[in-house]
């Protein structure tokens, strides 16, 4: 079963849809197209780039650490102009919190390129990377036999995660709540999006 290779992103300037490619994220792409390009000081921003919670992340180092460990999956999404619009790192198997005894996929981190960020970029380019990678994680979980269960530790924006179908659990780590999407909710989402049959 092949996982999805394309993601619909909305072009902010026009509202049109661009089909971007979902690709394996390796350390070369992480270094050259994320670490070296995302934090360009020439970017016209509403606030300092250093204020972003991930401005210190070194994707090359992160990917180097996990690249050869099959428990982890790293992906990026690339638009037609060659730019990397977002990146994802997830762990393929963890415990479900909401459905004890079941398994889930854990989203370790997702980041969208600074020029796409609603409250940072003056003229954002694309939207949909975060939701797209959440859906990708659900599809991976489903295709592994985990029913679509996915959990994550939210940095902020509870409304966004609730809208995606996640609900808060009783577990916290460093003050961040673990959120999870149940299998039935995840599968309804896959059906609504035409990814699986009802």
């Amino acid at each position, binding site marked *: 079963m092949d996982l999805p290779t394309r993601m619909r992103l909305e072009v902010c300037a026009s509202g049109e849809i661009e089909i971007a490619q979902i690709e394996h994220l390796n350390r070369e792409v992480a270094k050259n197209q994320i670490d070296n390009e995302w934090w360009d000081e020439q970017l016209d921003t509403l606030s300092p780039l250093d204020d972003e919670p991930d401005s210190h992340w070194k994707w090359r180092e992160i990917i180097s650490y996990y690249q050869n460990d099959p428990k982890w999956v790293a992906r990026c999404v690339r638009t037609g102009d060659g730019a990397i619009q977002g990146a994802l790192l997830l762990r393929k198997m963890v415990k479900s919190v909401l459905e004890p005894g079941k398994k889930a996929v854990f989203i370790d981190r997702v980041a969208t390129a600074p020029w796409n960020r609603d409250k940072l970029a003056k003229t954002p380019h694309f939207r949909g990377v975060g939701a*797209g990678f959440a859906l990708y994680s659900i599809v991976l979980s489903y295709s*592994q036999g985990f029913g679509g269960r996915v959990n994550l530790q939210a940095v902020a924006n509870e409304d966004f995660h609730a809208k995606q179908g996640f609900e808060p659990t009783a577990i916290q780590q460093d003050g*961040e709540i673990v959120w999870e999407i149940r299998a039935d909710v995840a599968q309804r989402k896959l059906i609504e999006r035409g990814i*699986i049959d009802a």
Partner: protein
Amino acid sequence: MPNQHMQHGDPTPVIGGGVMAAELLDDAGDDLVSAVAAFPNDPLARRAYELLTLNAGQLSLKFRNSDLANMDDATKRLLIQDLCDSLEIKPLLTDTL
């Protein structure tokens, strides 16, 4: 006419990045290391192996790596179909999210 889309970027640009809660860890996944190493050039065998390994607690089927390595592709596909039926995994209808 002003463009109504112009002000909207990605509303949640960053998720995660912290230390994973220990309660989530499932050590059973360590078997995956040998799965990918065992079938680097055989995606059908790797798919079957991953389904078997990731869902070992739910499946009663016993197997050895050599069993998978010796199967022809048609038999591997049948095995994968049986595993998907057992785990209630339907085929994906699209490759575009």
